[in-house]
């Protein structure tokens, strides 16, 4: 338990949430993934965290809710509530630059920024996260998890995955 302070700041909560990682991609925090849509702290240090799902059918969401709760309870709070809703609809532009780098570090090609509309052309010639070449092709837009597509690099001859762009 941290020492008593008058009131926890939103920044402190967000900072703590940097420790909560995507269970399937342990290099990226949920803050950098862009799924923390709101944080509020009451005068009594009761914390409300709002999340939004990456994909509607993402099975990791319940786990992330639990991880958020456990992490925030370690701060000097009177209580914590985690709410998931669609008030803000997640898209891959909400991933921070730090988040994109974290995906790349995990061996996943990060999604390219889009203008609100994802076209199939965006899935071709994706930059290989292993050698940096763009001489690549998409094999299938569906991969081991809902958020990944599968690609092949014609230069380093490796298959790789992309965290696919979603609008």
């Amino acid at each position, binding site marked *: 338990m941290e020492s008593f302070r008058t009131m926890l700041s939103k920044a402190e909560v967000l900072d703590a949430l940097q420790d909560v990682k995507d269970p399937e991609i342990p290099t990226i925090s949920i803050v950098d993934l862009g799924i923390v849509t709101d944080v509020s702290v009451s005068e009594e240090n009761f914390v409300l965290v709002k999340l939004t*799902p990456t*994909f*509607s*059918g*993402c099975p990791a969401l319940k786990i992330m809710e639990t991880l958020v709760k456990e992490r925030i309870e370690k701060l000097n709070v009177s209580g914590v509530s985690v709410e998931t809703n*669609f*008030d803000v*609809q*997640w*898209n891959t532009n909400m991933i921070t630059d730090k988040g994109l780098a974290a995906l790349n570090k995990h061996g996943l090609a990060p999604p390219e920024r889009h203008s609100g509309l*994802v076209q*199939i052309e965006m899935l071709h010639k994706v930059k290989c996260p292993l050698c940096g070449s763009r001489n690549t092709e998409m*094999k*299938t*837009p*569906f*991969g*081991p998890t*809902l958020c990944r597509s*599968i690609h092949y690099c014609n230069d380093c001859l490796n298959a790789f995955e992309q965290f*696919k762009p*979603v*609008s």
Partner: protein
Amino acid sequence: MSLSPGELKDVKEFLYKIADDQLIIGHRNSEWTGLGPTLEEDIAFSSIAQDKIGQSQHIYELLHAMGEKHPDTTAFTRNAADFRCSHLTEYPNGEYEFSLMRNFLFNHSEHIRFGMLSTSSVEQLAKLAKKYRGEIKYHVMHSDTWVKQLGRANEESHMRMQKALNDTFNLALGIFEESDFAEALRETKVFEGEQVLQNKWLEEISPILDSASLVIPNKNSWAPAYGGRKGQHTEYLQPLIEEMGAVFRLDPNAEW
């Protein structure tokens, strides 16, 4: 927006139509898991199933917030007559091209429907619609790609795809069965109506089928498979429901 009791009943009925379509076609897609003609297709159908069932779940949650039962109870304990899905979604998977063509026709209708609903006066539904569109875009890309490739690949693939289109087209028209409350939903700016959707759908699928050298059946032969939206279903729905909910019903109070 605040709804009168009558309006709320209409909106709920409308939501059941959408969610039941997604749950049932999602379940059919999941039946390809382990059986897909290639590994990539196996994964594609499984992922699409996961998306569609996940999307249906959030609509059942919205219904729950409007006073209906818990999403799991709704999904797993109703009988066929309580479902509002279209016949298209109920048919067994059949050959791969049947499942593929079904997805093609359904995905486009869904993508347009959620586009229309993204400005719905039911705010929570509009939010979900915006979210779902980005996901369904990938389903549309998947079925478009294969319809175009197989429509023109060789004689056999063309013949099979044309037969699949002939077999699914009247079923797909059943998606657009109008309900008694259609006018009320239009007036309250919930949804513009199935006929508007059907026209947009035809406009969107026609050039794609054309580029695949596939021909939409002659309008004289159109016989939409209606009934699903009123709870009248094919013989295939009840067995599907029983299989889908078998584990849940073993112990409805189990903690998962």
